[in-house]
């Protein structure tokens, strides 16, 4: 349908540093449609593969994966030891791995230690256990300030850490991907592994939140 529409917008980039005369294309939707149409016509991509990729990250892979890993670590000390010693292999026990989860490191929060994950250089994120990253994680405010002012960033998330808590920031500069093992909330002793998994949020596994019990049960 979009065949014949130019894919290249006259915007950028490394060829021409005359920024004043550049404009962000008004309609990326049109541009992407044109690109897909061209690549399909040339036989470079299969549209059904695109559908399958989108479906995977919209419906199959997401923070519920990581939540199961965390809940298991909370109830099974042997699993927790394996997870902290070799995150990649321990996470594979659930069948999670592969794309952007090839090399996993799990870092553990404790009463006096709080971990926070960032990628200052781009937006590296452990897709296999958390799915695709939210906009804030990829944004300039988070990427720039997480390393220089992690406590200030956490405050914006509503998390005020006492002075005697050590903050460890993990900048994902290589192909290692980081998952925070949050503290198990007090009062959750009687919950099952599945109930625990339901409490674990994406934010807690990035390190910008703690895991809390639902208000009604606390």
């Amino acid at each position: 349908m979009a065949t014949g529409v130019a894919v290249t917008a006259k915007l950028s980039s490394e060829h021409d540093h005359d920024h004043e005369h550049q404009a962000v294309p008004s309609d990326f939707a049109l541009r992407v449609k044109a690109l897909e149409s061209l690549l399909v016509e040339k036989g470079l991509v299969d549209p059904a593969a695109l559908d399958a990729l989108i479906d995977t990250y919209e419906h199959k892979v997401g923070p519920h994966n990581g939540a199961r890993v965390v809940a298991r670590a909370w109830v099974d000390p042997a699993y927790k030891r394996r997870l902290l010693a070799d995150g990649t292999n321990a996470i594979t026990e659930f069948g999670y791995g592969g794309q952007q989860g090839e090399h996993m490191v799990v870092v553990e929060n404790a009463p006096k230690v709080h971990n926070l994950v960032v990628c200052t250089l781009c937006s590296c994120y452990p897709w296999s256990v958390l799915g695709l990253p939210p906009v804030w994680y990829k944004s300039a405010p988070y990427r720039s300030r997480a390393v220089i002012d992690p406590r200030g960033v956490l405050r914006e998330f509503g998390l005020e850490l006492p002075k005697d808590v050590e903050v460890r920031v993990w900048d994902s500069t290589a192909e290692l991907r980081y998952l925070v093992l949050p503290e198990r909330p007090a009062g959750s002793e009687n919950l099952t592994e599945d109930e625990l998994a339901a409490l674990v949020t994406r934010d807690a596994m990035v390190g910008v939140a703690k895991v809390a019990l639902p208000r009604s049960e606390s």
Partner: protein
Amino acid sequence: MNGIHDMGGMQDMGPVRWEKNEPVFHTPWEGRSFALRLAAGAWRKWNIDASRHQMELIAPADYLRMSYYERWIEGLTELLVKTGLVTREEMDSGKPAPGSPKATPPLTADKVPAVLRAGRPASRDVAVAPRFKAGQRVRARNIHPTGHTRLPRYARGKFGTIHLDHGVYVFPDSNAHFLGEKPQHVYSVRFTARELWGEQAPPHDSVYVDMWDDYLEPA
């Protein structure tokens, strides 16, 4: 390259905007962009380092203005042309060149689960001696490569301690430019917040940065 992408330690970029019940993709075209880049990447004409570098080459003002998936599409468009999968003329017209043969896509829907499950490990099973060991004091080199690098500016010249050795991985500074994988050890290096940001930083906080052998020198 000392580009805008290397933003660790910058200030005044505004508040972090958290979105309630954020969808995976905000518009259908974001999803198509995401999938297009993965599917086109299956031709293996480029690698993840080249792909990251292509986005770093977006002019700074554009880089800051553009959304994540806009940068993906901008980077993908350039990669497709640079690697010859699509010609500039085809991009401009939106049509395949007359008489050009139709290819067969390497990634079909049935292969998606297996390809995602396999991923693309960056570790290499080659015997390379580590230059450093856990507990050792090191200094991040004060270098300013004009090409791709994963050595963030805020750590350059700073003293740290090897926390652990992750093993041997592809070196992005050469791989991004198709100059070979140059596999070498990657370490988790701990820098105290005070070493990086000065005496006003909290005394016990730290930043861990993953660094290749070539980024480090003995301290």
